[in-house]
């Protein structure tokens, strides 16, 4: 993994170097040390001496040795290591732990280690002398293997071994000049002195590039730092960069990321909780953003994280879980209780746990571990649970700086990062402990809502950049099938939760029932009224029918009677021998009619 990364990096930096050659006259030599070539924009000044200074045990020797080993193995530049403090055997053993086989390199004429031993008690000074012997030795070693790189570690010990510092100073000045003339890219190490960078003021002679290493222990946790004090003729990063020495050698971490050129993805990642996705604009988080979930103890932060991981693993994405307070087994067991089984994902290789106590390393070591593990696992989703446990490792500024770099790193790699933050009971909930909320894209708050003698869990989305998100406080419960967001009940004092919610629910049910009953009653009344109306109509109709029949009968009778009278009249006329036709006697008829009317 590392070697492949290195190769890529080297190719990139070689291109950078060539660009530099065009732009500036200062050629550089790649060190091959992870991160150092970045902050020096291409390595150490080519053909010039560089001073690496620092206190005892700060990594000077290791850094110089790595410079030579990388030179010999990656850049085909053999090197000479002139050791004034450690023998070849000691050096070989010291760097064997980093996987460097010095014996192989020396056997193949890629490296010469020359141990210079000066024992003051054996030496008597009897007049003027010079250091030509050293020059000869170095020159011979350089010529033997065609060296391009030279390390003098730690040349200052010469002051302890030989008398007459005036001669030594003059000779060292000559030595550095000589190295330059020979075109050697050299590293000279020096022990840090009182108020000066080196005990003998070597920085006066080696003025092209000065790198200061520092090893601090704060609250029993060590942090190594590197600073480029001076780099003549070149731009360089001026910050203090943390660096680490681990089984892969030295890695320097550029403290600030390259810039804010992260790609913004419009791809969405489900939170694993359907109703929470709904709250987040209906689709969940944006891919490659950072999510902060803060809340007091036991509010379900880890459960929310487990949901995200479970959902990601279901999609076949790799996940990385940094547990800073619980062991992986514990997390798996706990999540099983809410119906999320992470164990199969671990078995499948989709999920990787890294449980390290925060106090086990310094902040920088943690940062590097995370970098390495992310590179190793190719994770798309990373959970840090909880992020607040790093606070004990440094002051707020350091922690913030570490987290900033971590977040930048995740963003640059389009990794969805999920951080949980434990809020102390009593402190302001919306104050994220390390002031990192501004770095976060989505901030979800979990909270215990205490009322009616019980605690219930509330969730709300405080912010979520780039999406319309719900402004509602929702109650959620941890069920045996995960987090479940409940319906919203709003009472007189805000959202109603727990038993109060259940009561509210029951009350609303009762009210609904009552209402329904009322409606039914009204409906029945209406029907009854309708029936009554119908009955009335039927009765009236019956009456009308009766009357009508009566009237029709009367009319008929009347008509019959009139007919009878006519017949009688005709019969009477016949009997009186009058005109037989009725038409001929209108007057008489009229007269009879009138008479009939009168009878009626």
């Amino acid at each position, binding site marked *: 993994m590392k070697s492949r990364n290195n190769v890529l990096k080297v190719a990139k930096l070689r291109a950078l170097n060539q660009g530099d050659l065009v732009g500036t006259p200062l050629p550089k030599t790649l060190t091959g040390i992870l991160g150092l070539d970045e902050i020096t924009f291409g390595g150490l000044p080519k053909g010039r001496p560089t001073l690496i200074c620092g206190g005892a045990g700060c990594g000077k020797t290791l850094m110089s040795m790595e410079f030579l080993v990388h030179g010999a193995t990656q850049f085909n530049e053999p090197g000479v290591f002139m050791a004034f403090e450690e023998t070849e055997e000691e050096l070989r053993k010291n760097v064997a732990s980093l996987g460097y086989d010095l014996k192989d390199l020396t056997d193949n004429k890629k490296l010469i280690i020359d141990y210079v031993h*000066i024992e003051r008690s054996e030496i008597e000074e*009897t*007049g003027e*002398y010079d250091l030509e*012997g050293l020059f000869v030795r170095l*020159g011979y070693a350089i010529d033997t293997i065609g060296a391009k790189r030279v390390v003098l570690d730690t040349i200052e010990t010469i002051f302890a071994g*030989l008398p007459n510092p005036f001669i030594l100073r003059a000779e060292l000045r000559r030595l550095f000049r000589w190295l330059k003339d020979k075109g050697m890219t050299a590293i000279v190490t020096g022990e840090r002195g009182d108020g000066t960078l080196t005990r003998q003021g070597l920085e006066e002679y080696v003025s092209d590039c000065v790198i200061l290493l520092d090893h601090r222990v704060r609250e029993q946790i060590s942090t190594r730092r590197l600073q480029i004090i001076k780099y003549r003729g070149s731009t360089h990063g001026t910050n203090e960069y943390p660096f680490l020495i681990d089984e892969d050698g030295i890695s320097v971490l550029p403290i600030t990321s390259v810039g804010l050129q992260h790609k913004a993805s419009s791809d969405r990642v489900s939170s694993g909780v359907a109703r929470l996705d709904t709250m987040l604009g209906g689709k969940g988080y944006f891919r490659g953003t950072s999510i902060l979930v803060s809340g007091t103890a036991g509010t379900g932060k880890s459960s929310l994280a487990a949901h995200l991981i479970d959902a990601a693993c279901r999609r076949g994405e790799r996940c990385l879980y940094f547990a800073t307070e619980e062991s992986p087994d514990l997390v798996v067991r706990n999540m099983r209780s809410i119906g999320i089984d992470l164990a199969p994902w671990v078995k499948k290789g989709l999920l990787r746990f890294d449980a390290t106590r925060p106090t086990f390393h310094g902040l920088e070591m943690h940062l590097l571990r995370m970098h390495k593990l992310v590179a190793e696992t190719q994770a798309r989703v990373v959970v840090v649970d909880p992020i607040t446990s790093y606070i004990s490792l440094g002051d707020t500024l350091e922690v913030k700086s570490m987290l900033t770099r971590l977040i930048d790193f995740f963003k640059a790699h389009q990794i969805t990062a999920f951080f949980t933050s434990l809020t102390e009971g009593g402190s302001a909930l919306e104050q994220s402990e390390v002031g990192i909320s501004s770095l976060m894209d989505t901030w979800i708050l979990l909270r215990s809502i205490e009322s009616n003698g019980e605690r219930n869990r509330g969730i709300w989305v405080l912010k979520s950049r780039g999406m319309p998100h719900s402004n509602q406080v929702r109650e959620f419960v941890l069920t045996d099938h995960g987090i479940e967001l409940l319906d919203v009940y709003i009472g007189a004092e805000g959202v109603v939760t727990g038993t109060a919610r259940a009561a509210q629910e029951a009350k609303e049910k009762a009210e609904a029932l009552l209402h329904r009953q009322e409606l039914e009653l009204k409906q029945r009344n209406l029907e009854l009224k309708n029936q009554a109306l119908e009955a009335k109509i039927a009765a009236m109709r019956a009456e009308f029918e009766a009357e009508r029949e009566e009237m029709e009968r009367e009319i008929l009778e009347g008509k019959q009677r009139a007919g009878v009278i006519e017949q009688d009249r005709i019969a009477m006329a016949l009997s009186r021998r009058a005109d037989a036709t009725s038409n001929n006697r209108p007057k008489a008829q009229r007269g009879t009619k009138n008479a009939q009317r009168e009878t009626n």
Partner: protein
Amino acid sequence: MPSAKLIKNPKSQNDAWVLRLYVAGQTPKSVSAFANLKRICSEHLADRYRIELIDLLENPQLARGDQIVAIPTLVRNLPTPMKKIIGDLSNTDRVLVGLDLRPAPRKG
């Protein structure tokens, strides 16, 4: 000046003293160191010494063996313990002290 030359006292029977002088080319310091050494030896060691002159410009690989840093360096291989004297040997007293031919001066 010859290199790695053995300057042996012809009359010497037993080489009780083996002195090796490392130089780098014929610099004034080297020349005077060699002259001073010969003078001191003949004055104080009579015929009990042998001088080996090594020019590192011609045999650079030899510098490592005796841990040579300063030039000129005189190494007393015999009698043991090994002694190193650096400089042009112009301070005879100190050379004699260095070679254990005279006890270190006590002041006061």
